[in-house]
């Protein structure tokens, strides 16, 4: 029994790893294609049909490029930076429930790497470590633009983590669990949290943008001001890691949004179809991925539409608007729950 369990877990981890990388790779392609289409351009269309092999070509290009480490940089940290960024980005996907349980030999296996009871806290812990990658990378480059980018990124991520935490507290109060699995399970049957926590959702969405360093919060790399921000001095695969990690971040953020607010693998009336458990699981995974892809597209769509904030405006938005809003959300949720308890609904 244990061995099947282990095998299933390992398979899930491997598949998840590959899927994450694949999603990130095709997000780069998608980003370019979406940007191009939104801008009346064609986008990549040379490598393969419709340019579908473009991520491969990009990868090859990244690997073949000359590796440049600035002479004045702190070499160990210079290499450490993108690595940390990549690892933390990958780690977050461990706690996301990718679908309903799969049944093998009458035994249910959750499609999840680890169902820990403090999954949300774990997410926060890992996300807060992502700052190190950017900060160290930016600092070690020994370039003023990189440093400015690093400073911007770190203060931005720390500030928005706060608001993000507050936005989730509402959900916690509502669901009473820190486990993503429980949270998703509670939303089955179209009881999506987004209907009960709309404010929390908006705050979380904005913070997800900020945490993933996406426009309009891409101040850290802000090509017109800081040239490349923290990755100005990076080249070759180390740059690739930074860029890749950003897309992984986006993928995971989308997954978390889908799980927290959009019922994860739930879809209206899917539970009424009476599908067999394994088909149900597959359909659930597909549904979750559809949601994720929609949110990735949404990320891109927003990025290619609006201007970015200025540093002080960003801070102001985070501290003066989102955090009070998050607090208010907690208050209202708490009041509502108390009322509900009181009236025994």
């Amino acid at each position, binding site marked *: 029994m244990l061995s099947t369990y282990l095998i299933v877990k390992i398979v899930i981890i491997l598949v998840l790893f590959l899927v994450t990388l694949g999603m990130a790779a095709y997000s780069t392609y998608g980003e370019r294609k*979406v940007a*191009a*289409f*939104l*801008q*009346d*351009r*064609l986008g990549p*269309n040379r490598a393969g049909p419709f340019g579908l092999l473009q991520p491969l070509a990009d990868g090859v290009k990244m690997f073949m490029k000359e590796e440049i480490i600035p002479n004045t940089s702190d070499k160990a940290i210079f290499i450490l930076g993108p690595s940390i960024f990549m690892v933390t980005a990958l780690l977050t996907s461990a706690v996301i429930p990718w679908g309903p349980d799969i049944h093998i030999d009458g035994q249910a296996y959750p499609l999840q790497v680890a169902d820990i009871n403090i999954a949300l806290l774990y997410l926060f812990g890992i996300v807060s470590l992502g700052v190190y990658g950017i900060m160290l990378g930016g600092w070690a480059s020994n370039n003023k633009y990189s440093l400015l980018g690093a400073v911007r990124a770190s203060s931005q991520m720390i500030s928005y983590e706060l608001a993000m935490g507050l936005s989730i507290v509402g959900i916690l109060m509502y669901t009473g669990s820190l486990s993503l699995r429980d949270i998703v399970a509670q939303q089955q049957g179209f009881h999506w949290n987004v209907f009960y926590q709309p404010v929390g959702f908006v705050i979380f969405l904005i913070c997800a943008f900020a945490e993933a360093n996406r426009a309009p919060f891409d101040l850290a790399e802000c090509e017109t001001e800081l040239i490349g921000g923290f990755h100005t001095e990076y080249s070759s695969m180390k740059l690739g890691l930074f860029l890749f990690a950003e897309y992984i971040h986006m993928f995971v953020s989308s997954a978390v949004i889908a799980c927290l607010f959009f019922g994860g693998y739930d879809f209206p009336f899917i539970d009424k179809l009476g599908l067999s458990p394994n088909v149900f699981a597959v359909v659930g995974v597909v549904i979750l991925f559809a949601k994720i892809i929609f949110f990735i597209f949404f990320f891109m*769509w*927003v990025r*290619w*539409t*609006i201007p970015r904030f200025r540093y002080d405006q960003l801070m102001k938005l985070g501290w003066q608007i989102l955090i009070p809003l998050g607090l208010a959300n907690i208050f209202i949720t708490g009041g509502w729950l108390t009322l509900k308890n009181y009236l025994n609904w």
Partner: protein
Amino acid sequence: MYRSLTAKRKNVSAGQRELTFMERMYLPAILKGMKITIGHLFKKKVSLNYPEVKREFSDFYRGMHVLKRDENGAENCTACGMCALACPAEAITIDAAERKPGEEHLYREEKYAAKYEINMLRCIYCGLCEEACPKDAIYLTERIVPAYYKRKDFIYGKDILVEDINNRVDITKRKQPIKKA
């Protein structure tokens, strides 16, 4: 503010309304913008697949030069030096030579350019040489000068500039229409 200088003054800054509350919430502009951008998702794309599809040049496009021959295949250029004089970039070098008997099929007039070089690195494609030419000899065409690795490759001599006798370059469209007197 400063005194008005003309009656055509129109203040555009004061004309802007204050942002409404909704607009201050960022959302309407963002949503409107997103509507616009999503609308473009399905529009016809304007970029061309370059090497396969090429954009149409105008009839007067100022690209690579050509030294014309007349209808008998003799070179029009008479090495008068007008083009070199008119060239603001000093890109043209000409050495003149006398036509020898028996070369009438090669050169139209008694004098011809033994050496005619245009340095394509200096050339700014302004078209003044074409305008200065009194002999219907030099024209800019819609061909494009390719890139090379070496500077000396950009110095085009007569071997490149003079049109191939079997493969004429058509410049009739860029010639001035004949004025009715």
